[in-house]
């Protein structure tokens, strides 16, 4: 009974770790340290006279705070450095436990007060924690954790998580609060780990440093990986295998005549390698089924009439750059650029390579901070540059040059991630979804309606259940645009949307861009294809060497002799000549 309860607590710790690892894609190698915080924290507090229940809760909260602090580092660390930092943390915890007996009771460990009693004077309840009670408690916690995680993953949080583990950059560009989500997942994972540690400590009665070595972190990490990405059953399989280890290794040890502890090391290593080899095939198949199940359920719900996300704006300026300067080292990328984007127009930004088009777009999108100058969104000063998310809230969103960044997710799911940016009107959506409130169900219907509307606008509604990798390159570009419009942005910043498209596809893209303008969006288009620009643009701004050379109606700009000399005249690339001659 005791060992079964122990395994259940181990599973609980694995579910905790699954939050940052499987759902946020963060390589966290320090779960054992958080488990130790729970175990030793509880033992220390109980030894100093705290009631057992209070000690458990306090230690859990402490680990949650520790996870949140690690989260602050994680928000700034690239993936690999987070692995290194958390691996260092696992060892730091272990060294502290082994070298500082005051904390850990030395190699003997700490004893909890016996018998373990939960006392509630106000309710008059005294509960002695028998092993069977631990089994019940740990079992309930595991089931609750598994169900809650599974449910959350199918809701609004799950959309955010899917985006940020696939591509943090793209998630940010769609307005997903990447850092906040990461911190929350790390913190929750650490707290759940600590709860499991506290439970184990109370169950066993003694907590010794040797049981909380970095090997525990490693075992939990691989247990979580077994099921591949984002599954609720993966940790269960992994922990079941881990649980079978001690008895199996005793058998191996007696058969081979070696030390049981070493035998356990051998089997753990074998298990780890097997898990690594298996996680691909196992992990690929099941999420695909899961994803299908999800999208099937969505369409069963029945789609309400798709509301138009974009309120039609009066023809006002939605985005204005005034006297913007940006310098990269010795290069003056932007040198006093003026740019205005109005609602309902397609505004093309053209110029030779290196003229500052992309930089201007990044300044507008808030990913590059200008050295000087003014950026305004609908007349208000733009949020501070850095993360794109605040700009998305303010109504400015950009597409990235690279496509195919959300590979395995279906088109509908990807657009739904964009729709999340329009859902700031209801607080606590993740929680509402978790508890299945009626409002959450209405929101889900609204979300799928908006997603379908955005897909319909670019002509991809028939492809909503197709994973993005299976779309052709033109459809992927259109999906990017749909994702951007789904955020409800008034200003769409499109970076070379026609790249890699054939001529018929470009015609279709042109129609989509015109219809977006008709719907009230302001479209800022960075594009090399002058024929396309001539077809769709209401206004053209020509950049050269970081300055605005000309701005106005396409025909006027073309006629400008200075533009012809600087941009079209002395360009050696024959492609530009051909495009210049193409009928507009």
């Amino acid at each position, binding site marked *: 009974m005791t060992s079964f309860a122990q395994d259940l607590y181990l599973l609980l710790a694995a579910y905790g770790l699954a939050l940052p690892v499987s759902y946020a*894609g963060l390589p966290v190698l320090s779960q054992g340290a958080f488990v130790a915080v729970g175990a030793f924290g509880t033992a220390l507090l109980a030894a100093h006279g705290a009631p057992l229940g209070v000690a458990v809760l306090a230690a859990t909260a402490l680990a949650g705070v520790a996870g949140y602090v690690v989260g602050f580092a994680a928000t*700034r660390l690239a993936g690999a450095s987070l692995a290194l930092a958390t691996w260092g943390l696992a060892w730091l915890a272990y060294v502290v436990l082994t070298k*500082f007996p005051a904390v850990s009771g030395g190699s003997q460990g700490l004893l909890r007060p016996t018998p373990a009693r939960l006392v509630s004077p106000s309710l008059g309840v005294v509960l002695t924690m028998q092993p069977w009670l631990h089994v019940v408690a740990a079992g309930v916690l595991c089931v609750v954790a598994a169900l809650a995680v599974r449910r959350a993953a199918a809701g609004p949080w799950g959309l955010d998580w899917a985006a940020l583990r696939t591509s943090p*950059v793209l998630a940010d560009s769609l307005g997903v609060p990447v850092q906040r989500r990461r911190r929350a997942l790390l913190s929750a994972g650490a707290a759940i780990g600590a709860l499991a540690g506290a439970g184990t400590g109370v169950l066993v009665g003694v907590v010794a440093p040797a049981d909380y070595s970095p*090997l525990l972190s490693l075992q939990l990490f691989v247990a979580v990986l077994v099921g591949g990405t984002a599954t609720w059953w993966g940790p269960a399989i992994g922990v079941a295998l881990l649980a079978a280890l001690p008895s199996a290794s005793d058998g191996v040890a007696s058969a081979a005549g070696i030390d049981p502890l*070493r035998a356990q090391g051998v089997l753990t290593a074998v298990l780890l390698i097997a898990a690594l080899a298996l996680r691909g095939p196992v992990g690929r198949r099941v999420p695909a089924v899961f994803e299908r199940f999800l999208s099937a359920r969505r369409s069963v719900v029945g789609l309400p009439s798709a509301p138009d996300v974009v309120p039609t704006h009066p023809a006002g300026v939605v985005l204005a750059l005034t006297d913007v300067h940006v310098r990269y080292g010795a290069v003056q990328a932007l040198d006093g650029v003026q740019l205005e984007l109005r609602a309902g127009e397609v505004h093309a930004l053209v110029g030779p390579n290196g003229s500052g088009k992309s930089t201007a777009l990044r300044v507008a999108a808030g990913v590059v901070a200008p050295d000087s100058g003014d950026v305004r969104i609908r007349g208000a000063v733009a949020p501070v540059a850095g993360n794109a998310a605040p700009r998305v809230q303010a109504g400015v969103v950009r597409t990235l040059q690279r496509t195919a960044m959300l590979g395995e997710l279906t088109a509908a799911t990807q657009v739904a991630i964009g729709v999340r940016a329009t859902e700031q009107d209801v607080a606590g959506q993740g929680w509402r979804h978790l508890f299945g409130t009626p409002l959450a169900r209405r929101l889900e219907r609204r979300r799928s309606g908006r997603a379908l509307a955005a897909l319909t606008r670019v002509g991809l509604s028939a492809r909503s259940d197709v994973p993005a990798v299976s779309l052709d390159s033109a459809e992927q570009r259109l999906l990017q645009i749909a994702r951007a419009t789904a955020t409800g942005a008034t200003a769409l910043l499109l970076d070379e949307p026609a790249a890699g498209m054939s001529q018929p596809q470009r015609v279709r893209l042109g129609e989509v861009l015109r219809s977006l303008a008709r719907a009230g969006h302001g479209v800022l288009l960075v594009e090399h294809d002058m024929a396309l620009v001539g077809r769709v643009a209401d206004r053209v701004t020509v950049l050269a060497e970081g300055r605005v050379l000309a701005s106005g109606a396409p025909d006027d700009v073309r006629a400008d002799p200075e533009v012809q000399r600087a941009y079209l005249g002395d360009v050696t690339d024959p492609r530009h000549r051909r495009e210049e001659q193409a009928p507009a």
Partner: protein
Amino acid sequence: MSGGVLLQAVLSGLADGSVIALVAVGFTLVWSLTRVLALAHGDLVVAAALTGVLVVVGRTPVDISLDPVRSVAVVVVAVAAGVALSVLAYAVTVRPFLDRSQRAEDLLGWVAGGVTAGLVVRTALGLALPAAAYAVPDPFHLDALTSSGSLGLPGGGSLQVRVFPVLGVALVVAAAADVFITRSRLGRSMRAVADDVDAAALCGIPLERTVVAAFALAGLLAAVAGLLHAPAQSIAVDDGALLGISGAAAAVLGRLGSPRGAVAGGLVLGVAQQLLALDSHLGPGWAAALAPAVLVAVLAVRPGGLRAGRQVAVE
């Protein structure tokens, strides 16, 4: 605290630090070429040295005086083991998770692969060497400089005489590695790959061979580090992991990707550990916790430290 004791701590620290530096150089080299962290590197250090001893002396190593032939044999086997294990670790736990053609990597995959490789090495070695710790013979005979193996210092305190040759050998090897990386054709290929994989490939540099060579060099440095480190005290199979953490901390301290920075970081870390151990209030516990604490703290405070000096565009 007398001046002699302080001097002893600094000199011992420099010797410890030079060993850490060799580990750190290998770690940093692997990072700059593959953008992968060699999480099993520390285990290779101990594994290489113990393999050399195991093959030549036998399964119950004792601190015996080796004749010249067996000394050379220990060094050769240890270096061969270090190189082979490092290349093997790359082939089995890193390569499968990198996909250069698609410029994508499986982060969770190689992280798990690296820590697993370390566990496999430790476990395999533990099967052959079941005792808690071993005193191993010194193939370099570094204690033989004085008859007692130690040296009295002016102002009190005495010093293991081996700290001088350890420091010397380690710095010479590190300098040789530096010359190799900056001057030789293969070394220049490594730097080209580290700087820009695609550009190096376009220039006709054989990518795979260069990366394997870098891992081999890292394994060689690890073996030398192990041979210098192991005879100084009794050594346990499990010591490698913490040595790897120390190496990683030194590499991060000196800015990851910079071999010279790694050497400096190692020396600073070694001396700091000894000085901490000297302090009567803090003591050896703090010295042991220093390396992982530095690793965590540097990464948390200077998150750009890993990529400083090389801005990677977001797109």
